[in-house]
């Protein structure tokens, strides 16, 4: 069975836009694959259709079957992590195999003050 791991430096998972996101990813594979990618992406969850957008990737072509690699990315300026009652937008970083069969990920918060924005119902003027 393939083993995939990804972690952020010092296990920090909340960032402000523009801040560096760094850490390491490691893998131990049953057989060789064409490539492995680290992806920084956001996705939504809630009542409606899910949405997902990959905003940055680091690709390792013809990787060794067992290795660990550092990574360094920058937290994008937008969109911010937020949650309301109907929709949440979340960021994550994942390591994924070319086959798409295996992945591991860490959820992140990217927003001013490195805190998820909470949308609350507004009673009106």
């Amino acid at each position, binding site marked *: 069975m393939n083993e995939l791991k990804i972690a952020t430096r010092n296990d920090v998972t909340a960032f402000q836009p523009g801040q560096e996101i760094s850490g390491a990813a490691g893998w131990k594979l049953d057989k060789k694959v064409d490539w492995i990618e680290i992806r920084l992406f956001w996705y939504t*969850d*809630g*009542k409606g259709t899910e949405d997902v957008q990959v905003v940055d990737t680091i690709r390792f072509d013809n990787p060794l079957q067992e290795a660990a690699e550092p990574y360094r990315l920058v937290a994008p300026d937008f969109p911010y992590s937020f949650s309301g*009652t109907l929709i*949440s937008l*979340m960021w994550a970083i994942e390591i994924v195999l070319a086959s798409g069969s295996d992945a591991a990920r860490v959820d992140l918060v990217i927003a001013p003050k490195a805190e998820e924005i909470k949308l609350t*119902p507004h009673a009106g003027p």
Partner: protein
Amino acid sequence: MRARDNPFSTSRVLKLRYRLPPDGMESLLSRLEQLRFHAAIVGPHGSGKTTLMQDLTPGLRARGFSVHYHHLGETRRRIDPEWRSDLAARVGPGDCLLLDGAEQLSSWDWWRFRRQFRRAGGMVLTTHGPGRLPTLATCKTSPGLLAELLRCLVSWPEEEIQSVAETFHARHQGNIRDALRALYDQEARMGTEPCGPRTA
């Protein structure tokens, strides 16, 4: 309650798969093979037709098919012309088309579709009524089924699960999708308002 914490959020609901007996998928695929891979999954709104169709995909791929999925619904009643022309030009015995929402097609459009894709090795539809292709499966729901799904999503007391399942199944005329959406709204409200009984 934050949307991502709602037990009825889309990501959690989509993880629920069609309920079949242990050897149900294999016998369904065998039956589909007997029907020369041309068949329909029939049932009313929110009865699991789309889920069952999606769950057939790995079995079809294991039988060597390239699977092509297309969804029609109330906001998209016609087949995407680009999808149609691209696929029609190269479709063959190794292709299986999954057409979700075939009831949206008029008789004329259905005839055209069948003719255009007559070389396809497989064609599976979901539709509200029988007739367009031989029926592979008829999807039905029950309060018991909704209760089974609720047990996968929440850890409420059994009595409450039974009661909610009865109430919401009846209120939404057996439409499980609508029932789960209504439960989403109810959970969202309960996170911001004083708690009341879920079946109120």
